[in-house]
């Protein structure tokens, strides 16, 4: 009988849960506020017991954007965490979010150092019909992948998926890349500036099950390996645009709208122009679309992203004693 290797990984003592990285993505804003309230109440009621194996830091990442219910004030905070952005000089004209990124890096990092948070979970919402998606930079971070599997099992009535951006650590640009392990927890569909109770509840469950998993992991539980699907991002497609005005000249086709993670085959409808013409996918490879019609991506020139799906084997893991 083949004996499976159990991968031993360091304890996850310090976890951060961040909300409001985009100030108008409200599930995370309200959830972190609620968790802060609960934490404050707990502190008043109980003597500080033995902290246990894990501390959880709750962070509201972009308070100024939250106050105005905007995605950002000067620039997208969740693109400010590349090494180049983090080490640059802070001048008078440095945008608010760049400064804030450096503050967050000091608080939760520094990125790449031994002192960084063990795990960062950054909460986001999307207008796309993506269920609960964990977005990471790795297809071999067993911690993130086991957390994903745990969520998938514990939240059966919501589709849960694992998205991988194949980007190096140096070039990784989002808040979750500051920790030793990290991911964005993206829940949709929800309009920006709105909190939908079902979406909030899904996110709340996601965070709770994640923290449960970390607690079990730190207690020495062995998590069996197995197989899981990973969606690795290949490219994105922009809207067709008017040459002069740059305004879009077509909308996501009704047959594609809301069909995140449904295979898109060559020849399938992509866009419908305002004169009723169907524009089709001309790629040669069938791919899986996601972030279909995300409102914040119009300005980034992205109508949808496309990914390859593959089965990945993950090892059993346990805490390194």
């Amino acid at each position: 009988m083949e004996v499976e290797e159990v991968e031993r990984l360091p304890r996850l003592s310090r976890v951060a849960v961040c909300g409001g990285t985009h100030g108008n993505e409200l599930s995370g804003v309200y959830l972190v506020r609620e968790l802060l309230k609960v934490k404050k109440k707990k502190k008043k009621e109980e003597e500080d017991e033995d902290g246990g194996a894990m501390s959880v830091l709750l962070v509201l990442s972009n308070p100024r954007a939250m106050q105005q219910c905007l995605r950002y004030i000067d620039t997208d905070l969740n693109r400010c965490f590349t090494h180049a952005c983090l080490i640059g000089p802070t001048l008078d004209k440095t945008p608010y979010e760049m400064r804030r990124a450096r503050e967050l890096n000091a608080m939760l990092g520094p990125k790449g150092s031994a002192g960084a948070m063990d795990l960062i979970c950054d909460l986001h919402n999307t207008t796309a019909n993506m269920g609960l998606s964990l977005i990471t930079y790795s297809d071999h971070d067993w911690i993130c992948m086991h957390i994903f599997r745990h969520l998938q099992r514990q939240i059966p009535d919501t589709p849960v998926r694992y998205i991988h951006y194949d980007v190096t650590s140096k070039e990784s640009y989002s808040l979750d890349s500051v920790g030793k392990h990290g991911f964005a927890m993206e829940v949709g569909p929800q309009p920006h500036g709105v909190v939908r109770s079902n979406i909030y509840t899904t996110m709340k469950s996601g965070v709770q099950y994640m923290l449960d998993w970390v607690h079990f992991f730190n207690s020495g539980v062995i998590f069996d390996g197995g197989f899981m699907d990973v969606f690795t991002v290949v490219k994105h497609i922009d809207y067709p645009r008017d040459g002069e005005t740059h305004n879009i000249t077509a909308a996501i086709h009704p047959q594609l709208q809301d069909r995140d993670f449904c295979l898109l085959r060559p020849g399938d409808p992509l866009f419908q122009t305002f004169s009723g013409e169907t524009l089709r996918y001309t790629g040669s490879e069938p791919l899986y679309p996601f972030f279909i019609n995300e409102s914040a991506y119009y300005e980034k020139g992205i109508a949808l992203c496309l990914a390859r799906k593959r089965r990945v084997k993950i090892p059993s893991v346990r805490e390194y004693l």
Partner: protein
Amino acid sequence: MSSFSSCQSVREARRVAIFGGTHGNELSGVTLVHLWMKNGTEIQRRGVETRPFITNPRAVEKCSRYVDTDLNRAFTPENLSAPADGQLPYEVLRAQEINRMFGPKGSPDAYDVIFDLHNTTSNMGCTLILESSKDHFNLQMINYIQKALAPASCLVLLNEHPLLKYSTARSVAKHPVGLEVGPQPQGVLRSNIFESMREILKHALDFIELFNEGVEFPPCSVPVFRVSERVDYPRDANGNIMAMVHPNLQDCDWEPLNPGDPMFQTFDGKTIRYQGSGTIYPTFINEAAYYEKQQAFVATRRETLSANAVRKA
């Protein structure tokens, strides 16, 4: 009192405007108006001048609801008569300009009809918004549109409430009509929502063409939902929202809410129930733009309006 309603003579509707971008992030209207400014064939009808117009270009540019203040609340008598100087908010100056171009509000020179195109994050489907229960031209037009769209539905919201009605961009015209189509997130263009709005306008313009040709429209009944009150989210002592629209109420625009029904859910999962005395019909449930206006939903009551026969004068 006469036992029949006589046919009402209404002035021909020669000048019609279609407003888009009154809120810069409500994209169906922005897109339709841009389209028609480039090529207006689709909106041309015999005997009518139909003018597409972007009301808030700076907000459209930023893809935000407004720049300084909500344009669709800015057409108050005070604002319209305020001396234009550098201190006025952008949207107040804009309201004055629009009033000059399409009004003046209340005068015989004002545009006959203005359609103002809006989207909502609420699950309201296709909704037409009226400001008066006595505008028989508008009532007949709505009746025509509803029959043309059937079996697809198009409901009518009547906001005649003295305290809750507000000074809209379209109120500059003799016959103001609001088009509200949802659900659609702000800053997003959904194909089905866009096409629905386009179809409503098609039928509206067909009606105007027929009306101007002398067609008489017989008396009819128009079921409406009349705005009765605005209901806010439960808030804590600091004014922060304490609860969300309950999952049982979310997306249930136009459906009856009875005393005792779940209305809100706190962030820690408790249910808050509707404690009113009678059944209401909520709409604008969980509209993003209304969080800052202290409105979780608008309560309405069902009513049937009678429209007189109308014919052009």
